[in-house]
């Protein structure tokens, strides 16, 4: 009998962009998300395999039951499956999910951990609180990097906000969110950026116009309140696994997505994810941040996804994968006595972007930070300026897809993609999460996954060629763009020491369709190709 495993921690994809969240962590404030898992036969092969989620340890997570089928599950081949779930009522913490893999020879139960955070808007600080069992992280983004002219009126949708093609001056997020919170006092502060995430966008709006007045977070005031206060030099990592900076990256990612949706839904130009320090120049570079633009509809969603994903990559890169500023601060601020308890840790950090931010490329970044440990006896400080580089790298990727599809002949649109790591070695199987975003001439958006499992359109399993297929209908006439987005996956062994596990981060975008450059103009947003659909 074949034996199955789920080699990686199941990960979240959020509903607005369809991308994996940083490190695959689920967020209660979003509500609906997908639980994604690679199911792999670790020994032997089996036919007619069924996979479903049996149960979840948190009753606040409501799964939409679904059973997936695998015609033939060969040994060592991973198959990606997704289940919709509502996390609205989820409690923050580490939860268990049991998967059932059933073959004609019997069934097998696989229990995996997932991580859930819970973000709440804090009207007092104008920031956000992210809860995990090990503590609460409060973060206020006090500075952001954005284009001088975000061209928010490019779609002409919000003409009232424009003057000579420029958006009017934007209020800071602190002011905007405080106002929103006051107005929505009876609505539990729903009308902040989280509101847009949880509400989603009621389906993909072909008229959605993307605007990104700020694209990179530069200044962050963060504080961790450990629960409970801890003795000694080191506290627990959130979920006993990722660095606290990963939580910051989740926040940055989700708020940027929400901001884009807020712009599209309300178009007020008053809600942006940055803060009072918004500026258009990378620190000391003399350059000018490019302006992300998109032609509207589906392309705008892709642009929103890529800007948010790039910001997450940048945030993680700034703070280094190996050891984050919180941990480094702890390294240098050992309490004087064993009886002192650390009751809070504060981090004031400023990102320095010395290179253009191009996902998948080894761009360098810098950070100036001050860490403060507050104990029951006194405070300890540590400050440093450091440089680091993005380590989520792709040497290159190659896409193979037809440029014409005859829908009237029911031809499939088959996309094949290969991704080479920094050592020019192909990624394979469950090492990547790959999706193709199809953007139609009328702003339509279709998304499908590419797999390396040797089934359906994929010719050979584990050969490093990820393949997916889509069938256009006779309503899909015209020229479609496509983007193939790849994200890495957290491959940490669940038995790893927390410090080691924390150094493995997944969910980082590797493909470079969008670059954040500092030479002005528009940010390069390059589709991987076009396909002409003939009906």
């Amino acid at each position, binding site marked *: 009998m074949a034996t199955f495993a789920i080699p990686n921690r199941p990960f979240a994809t959020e509903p607005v962009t369809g991308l994996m969240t940083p490190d695959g962590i689920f967020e209660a404030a979003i509500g609906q998300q997908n639980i994604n898992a690679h199911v792999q036969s670790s020994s032997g092969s089996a036919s007619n395999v*069924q996979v*479903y*989620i*049996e*149960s*979840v*340890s*948190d*009753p606040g997570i409501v*799964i939409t*039951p*679904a*059973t997936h089928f695998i015609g033939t599950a060969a040994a060592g081949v991973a198959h990606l499956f997704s289940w919709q779930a509502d996390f609205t009522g989820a409690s923050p913490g580490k939860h*268990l*999910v*049991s998967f*059932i893999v*059933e073959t004609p020879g019997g*069934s097998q*139960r696989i*229990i995996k951990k997932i991580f859930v955070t819970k973000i709440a808007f804090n009207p007092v600080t104008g920031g956000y609180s992210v809860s995990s069992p090990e503590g609460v992280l409060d973060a206020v983004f006090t500075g952001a990097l954005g284009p001088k002219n975000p061209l928010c009126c490019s779609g002409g949708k919000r003409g009232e906000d424009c003057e000579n093609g420029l958006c009017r001056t934007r209020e800071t997020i602190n002011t905007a969110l405080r106002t929103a919170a006051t107005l929505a006092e009876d609505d539990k502060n729903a009308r902040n950026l989280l509101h847009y995430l949880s509400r989603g966008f009621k389906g993909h709006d072909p008229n959605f116009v993307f605007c990104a007045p700020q694209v990179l977070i530069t200044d962050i005031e963060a504080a961790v309140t450990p629960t409970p206060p801890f003795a000694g030099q080191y506290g627990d990592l959130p979920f006993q696994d990722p660095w606290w900076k990963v939580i910051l990256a989740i926040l940055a990612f989700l708020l940027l997505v929400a901001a884009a949706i807020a712009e599209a839904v309300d178009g007020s130009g008053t809600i942006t994810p940055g803060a009072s320090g918004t500026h258009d120049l990378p620190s000391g570079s003399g350059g000018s941040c490019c302006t992300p633009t998109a032609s509207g509809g589906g392309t705008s969603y892709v642009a929103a996804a890529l800007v948010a994903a790039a910001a997450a990559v940048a945030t993680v890169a700034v703070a280094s994968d190996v050891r984050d500023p919180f941990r480094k601060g702890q390294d240098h601020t050992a309490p004087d006595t064993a009886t002192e308890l650390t009751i809070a840790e504060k981090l004031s950090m400023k990102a320095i972007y010395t290179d253009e931010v191009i996902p998948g490329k080894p761009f360098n970044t810098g950070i100036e930070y001050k860490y403060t440990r507050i104990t029951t006896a006194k405070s300890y400080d540590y400050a440093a300026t450091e440089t680091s580089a993005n380590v989520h790298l792709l040497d290159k990727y190659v896409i193979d897809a037809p440029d014409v599809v005859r829908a009237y002949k029911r031809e499939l649109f088959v996309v094949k993609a290969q991704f080479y790591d920094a050592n020019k070695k192909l990624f394979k199987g469950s090492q990547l999460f790959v999706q193709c975003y199809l953007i139609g001439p009328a702003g339509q958006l279709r998304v499908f996954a590419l797999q390396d499992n040797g089934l359906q359109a994929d010719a050979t399993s584990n050969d490093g060629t990820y393949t997916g297929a889509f069938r256009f209908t006779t309503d899909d006439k015209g020229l479609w763009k496509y983007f193939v987005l790849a994200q890495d996956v957290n491959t940490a062994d669940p038995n790893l020491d927390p410090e080691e596990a924390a150094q493995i981060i997944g969910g980082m975008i590797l493909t470079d369709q969008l670059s954040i450059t500092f030479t002005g103009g528009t940010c390069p947003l390059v589709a991987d190709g076009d396909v002409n659909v003939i009906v």
Partner: protein
Amino acid sequence: MSVQLEIQDGSTYWWLSPDVWTVPGEDPEGVPGLPIVGQPCYVWARVHNTGTDAVTNATVRFYWANPAVGFDRNSANHIGNANVSLNAGETKEVLCLVSWTPVWVNDGHECVLAEAFHAALDPLPASPDFNVPTDRHVAQRNLTILEVAPMTKNFSMSFEIHNTERLPRTFAIKAEVGKPAELRPLLKQLGRDIPTGTGKVAKMGLIKGRNACDGDETPQPSMDRIEVAGGGRTGLTLTGELEGEAALLHVVQEADGRDIGGLSVLVMQGKEQKKGRA
């Protein structure tokens, strides 16, 4: 199309289902055993599809209940849900990953239930009543293990009966002696051996109230008329003297001439009197 989901009842006493059990501790796939107050445990159910067609994504709901006799879907405590897919004629063990931490209520006497259904292909009856003995979807495990100190033959166990209806009802309660061998189908899930020797119970009976030491009421093997106000509950105590190694007792609750609830007690010689439930 025929899908028939079933969780089996106990053969003689329906509340002794062999298909519902608990696993105490942090490992949901650990060794079955008795739940311990204050410590988490996981509830499992064995679900059969006795129909002729396969079913995917059926739902299994898990509950614990207080009091042990007389409750419905509204008064039982929902623990969590699970999903199961079954071919025709197939049986599967289903795990509820939401852990249940038993609390000390009803003198420690609580029971667990599970029900399996598919909303479209094999729905539950519309009534909030569980109707365990007549509804194949649902089963109940309601067993208490009571250890009696070696130097003390006397035992007692308090429990409540609950009238879930709006209007007053009259119940009949009777205590019966069974045989420990009746528990054999449950052995795998008890997490412990049961004595192979036999025993008997003297002076077995029921008294009103929840403290055997109160008053001088003579225990009665049955009580034919116990009136309980609508939505109310009343306490009773099962008492007796164990002679020998072990004895199995059943308490049966009747209303309107039919069994509507019950619980079973395995009384065993032990180092000290203590209780566990399964």
